[in-house]
């Protein structure tokens, strides 16, 4: 399984980014190879509109199975993610990546 996180950094101890569309980084953890892939999404801050679908598209290119985030995506982004068949879990906005991953493994996160 490939698990995606919206993050403010690029390692296990980095805080999650509660926002989806304007998340600073997209991190994808591959449970088979135990490695991270990362996407620097910071350029999105200059977009006045459409951050959600654009970030969803960036995430789609990384082919995750699951997304763990904070507040949850907005309507447009949710439409894209639904088409991409990515399962979404929310409510991890105030955790670190590691805490968010543990919470996900223990079924403590809410499905979007």
């Amino acid at each position, binding site marked *: 399984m490939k698990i995606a996180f919206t993050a403010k950094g690029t390692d296990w101890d980095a805080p999650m980014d509660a926002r989806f569309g304007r998340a600073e980084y997209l991190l994808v953890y591959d449970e088979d190879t135990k490695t991270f892939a990362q996407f620097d999404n910071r350029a999105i801050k200059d*977009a006045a*509109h*459409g951050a959600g*679908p*654009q970030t*969803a*598209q960036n995430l789609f290119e990384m082919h995750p199975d699951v997304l763990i985030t904070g507040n949850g995506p907005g309507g*447009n982004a949710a439409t894209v993610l639904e*088409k*991409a068949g990515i399962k979404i879990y929310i409510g991890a906005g105030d955790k670190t990546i590691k805490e968010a991953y543990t919470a996900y493994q223990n079924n403590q996160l809410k499905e979007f």
Partner: protein
Amino acid sequence: MKIAIASGKGGTGKTTLSTNLSAFLAEQGKVVLTDLDVEEPNSGLFVNGTLQHAEDKFKMIPEWEQEKCTLCGICQEVCNYHAVIKMADQIMIFPELCHSCYACSELCPEEALPMIPQKMGELKQFNVNNLFFVESRLKIGEEQAVPLIKQTLQYVDAQFPKEIIKIYDSPPGTSCPVIEATKDADFVILITEPTPFGLHDLSLAVETMRELKKSFGVVINRYGIGNDDVLAYCEKEKVPVLAKIPNDRKIAELYSRGELIYRKVPEVKQQLDHIWKYIETTAGGRQ
């Protein structure tokens, strides 16, 4: 003669001033009042006219023709607004994000994205004696007010001769919809309230009007509440204060019943007269 009534802060009296000034001026000649606050038009609550005309307004949106598409992805690359997204083997279009720039449609090598009209709102015109009232209403869920404001302005320009006084009730704030609503005005009235919040947003509106090189003045509504900082600011910035509308329970009661105020409160009528005299001398008046 085009007069736009704007504010920084919402709820300071744009509609009150627009409707009262329009009806007041319509006692002496023809006036067109246009509600450009298309996201929440409310001037109509104070104008009980007869419906003369109604039309749907459209914007152009690309439509994906799957059988022609080779999934090259150029459409997604050229869209500045992320309104076109290539997802695996399909192209997704987000009409609310689209600015109708035609880039995706024109640059598609397969012509797989023809532009088609999509309803974004409706325009209505009502008449009451000398007063012509035009309002546009954006469809629920539409994000962009500017295209509808632009088309409404075009309608008014096409329907009414130049010499008629035109009053535009503008949206609040200082962003694109306000720029669109005020950019063709000969004079802009900024209406504010004498509170710290009113002053803060007034100063943003003043900066905006200076940037647009507009001739403008300030009307202070609910005068008597808050403090004198707005007056001090206007004096310091050399912005003319055209009128002060008093904070009066009677005015609030008339407003809440959808009635025009100047007909019942002589002081307000006097203030409207001040405003008009000022505009007539500085910006040319009724031509």
